[in-house]
């Protein structure tokens, strides 16, 4: 069965490594913080100016001055630090953050990503996404494999305005884990109970499929 948003987050959490600083985007990526594997320590950076982001506050303890990049009220962990926006993006551009997880509307087989604009319809802005994808060495995209109409979002070429070029190396969807190498998607794992045929059918971009495709272990 295809994964839900929490399942995607749970699979991405397996990519976390001890000692990493991690930036989580808005939406599915935020959920990754709920599934940190036991025995490892990571620090979450939110680009509006905190390192050491903790869970949501208890009811009645929200602080309007303490939010994440999704504008949600949060808490600060012991050892947390606040900083201004220029310092925050120095951490990001300067590659001091080891992993970036973000959502996408489209991803292409050359690693291009589009997630900030639908011309004539939706223009919210790129926020920090362009800075993040242009600089991060390790980017994982969390997304649904198809749109609501069932059309593939895993493409030969992006159709929407780009957020970054040739930057995505790994994609985790509700159906599969894909790697991008040599201008192609490579099928690494499939969601529990999802067939290789279904993934092939729902992937518009070129997909390299090995003889054996293991199921994700969640």
């Amino acid at each position, binding site marked *: 069965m295809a994964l839900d948003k929490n399942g995607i987050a749970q699979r991405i959490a397996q990519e976390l490594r001890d000692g990493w600083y991690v930036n989580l985007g808005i939406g599915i990526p935020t959920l990754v913080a709920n599934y940190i594997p036991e025995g490892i320590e990571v620090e979450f950076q939110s680009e*509006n100016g905190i390192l050491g982001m903790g869970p949501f506050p208890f009811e009645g303890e929200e602080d309007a001055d303490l*939010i994440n990049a999704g504008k949600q009220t949060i808490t600060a962990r012991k050892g947390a630090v*606040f900083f201004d*926006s*220029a310092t925050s993006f120095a951490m990001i551009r300067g590659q001091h953050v080891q992993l970036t997880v973000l959502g996408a509307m489209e991803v292409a087989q050359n690693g291009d990503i589009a997630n900030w604009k639908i011309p004539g319809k939706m223009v919210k802005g790129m926020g*920090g996404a*362009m*800075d993040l994808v*242009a600089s991060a060495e390790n980017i994982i995209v969390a997304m649904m494999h198809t749109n609501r109409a069932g059309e593939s979002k895993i493409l030969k070429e992006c159709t929407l305005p780009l957020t970054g070029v*040739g930057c995505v190396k790994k994609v985790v969807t509700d159906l599969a884990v894909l790697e991008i190498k040599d201008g192609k998607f490579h099928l690494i794992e499939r969601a529990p109970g999802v067939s290789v045929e279904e993934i092939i059918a729902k992937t518009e971009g070129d997909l390299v499929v090995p003889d054996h495709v293991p199921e994700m272990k969640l």
Partner: protein
Amino acid sequence: MNKVVNNVEEALDGIKDGMTLMLGGFGLCGIPENSIAQLVKMGVKDLTCISNNAGVDDFGLGLLLQGKQIKKMISSYVGENDEFERQMLSGELEVDLIPQGSLAERCRAGGAGIPAFFTPAGYGTEVAEGKEVRIFNGKPHILESALTADYAIVKAWKGDTEGNLVFKATARNFNPMMAMAGKITIAEVEELVPAGELDPNFIHTPGIFVQRIFKGEKFEKRIEQRTVRPKV
């Protein structure tokens, strides 16, 4: 040097139609809400506003949008504001969307006397159109220019009579860079204390960047996305 002015009216004196303003804040966090209310009262028009976001429909910069006081917005993210989206899609409002890190650095550069810099952010996208591209360490970068403003309006937690500022938590965000980049910088603060009361070791923005400081009358500090977990 005493930078204190008596109230928001005195603080914003001199702001005129057509000027460029920087306004600190991220979402509704750390915005100079008393000054925004005063800009609405003053009715100044044709403003160019440099601010990471545009508020929501009935708070923050959304209030200036409702009154059609803004001609151009320079921002990185403008979701959550229907009137903004309507004015932008209809062409009434000019909008320059720039990556958040580039926006922060352009303000910082403007205040620091650096006219332009190269960044990888936005290369290969709409943002790069018309901008010089150069390769450094094998990677393409685009040239971004500094931003300055006629007035920068920032919000701090504590300030002293010298204009030294301390921010609280993530309400710091764009405020320190914008304070540097204003020809005249106005700081509204929750607590205004005599010089000497703030520990010089823990001041975020040195008073040299601030020309006017006042204690805000009232801070609503609206929360945009209240997220909590139940008490066990």
